[in-house]
């Protein structure tokens, strides 16, 4: 891999993604955990840019950093739990071994043998634009059913969550 903007970006975003993820699972403080999660997901947004999907990157930042981070923070503040939980982990050793084994299996068993030889020369030139996406979303032969299902899913999630979270006593 030669030294250019993309490889620099790749390294930086890898540090963001994996460093942030480690922060999420290791920090004791949940608010700091939320910030770490956002660092990690910002790195993922960076990958999307490198993979020529800037729309997804912007949406990733909008949804995660703009909304989910705020929502998690509100939830953390609503459940004052830090002081009560003394130990962070349960089943530490088996979990660690299990996830390490999973990573090694995925890396050595799937990723490298199957996709290791995939040459980057075969990348298609044309990249779909946001307009293509919009046209396909509402096309009869395109994704109109998933498009409307997404709306139903969001409506259901919102109604359900409001129903659950509302405090009936007040």
């Amino acid at each position, binding site marked *: *891999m030669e030294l250019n903007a*993309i490889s620099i970006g*790749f390294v930086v975003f*890898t540090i963001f*993604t*994996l460093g942030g*993820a480690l922060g*999420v699972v290791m920090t004791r403080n*949940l608010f700091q955990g939320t910030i770490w*999660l956002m660092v*990690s*997901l910002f790195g993922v947004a960076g*990958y999307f840019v490198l993979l020529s*999907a800037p729309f*997804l990157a912007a*949406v*990733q930042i909008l*949804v*995660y950093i703009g*909304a*989910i981070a705020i929502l*998690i923070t509100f*939830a953390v503040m609503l*459940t004052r*739990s830090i002081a009560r*939980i003394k*130990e962070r*982990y349960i*089943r*530490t050793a088996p*979990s*660690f071994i*299990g*996830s*390490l084994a*999973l990573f090694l299996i*995925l*890396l050595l068993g*799937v*990723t490298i043998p199957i*996709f290791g030889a*995939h040459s*980057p020369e075969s*990348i*298609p030139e044309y*990249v*779909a634009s946001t307009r*293509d*996406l919009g046209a396909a*979303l509402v096309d009869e032969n*395109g*994704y109109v059913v998933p498009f409307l299902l997404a709306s139903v*899913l*969001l409506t259901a*999630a919102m109604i*359900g*969550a409001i129903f*659950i*979270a509302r*405090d009936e006593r007040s």
Partner: protein
Amino acid sequence: MAPLWMYLAVAAALFSIGVFGVLARRNAVAILMSVELMLNAVNINLVAFWRYSETSTDLLLNGYVFTAFVLIVAAAEAAVGLAIIITVYRNRRSVIPEEAAMLKG
């Protein structure tokens, strides 16, 4: 461009970290955050495969739409999951999943 397997390797690492978080963390909110990590690992894979595969033009957007969908599901999951955590906390004063086993037979 970085080769495909590098993206997949990062995604695998991210997924494994998420799995560790889900298995080992005690706090329900932390577990939820780990699940978000796993979903994002999946998203990296989806976008990487979409970018690197040679597909016919009418399938050009499959990966893209799939990723947008995972994003929406992740958001819905966070919303409902956190609402459940808040309610359980309100009733049981606890955010540890093992302690909220009132539905167990």
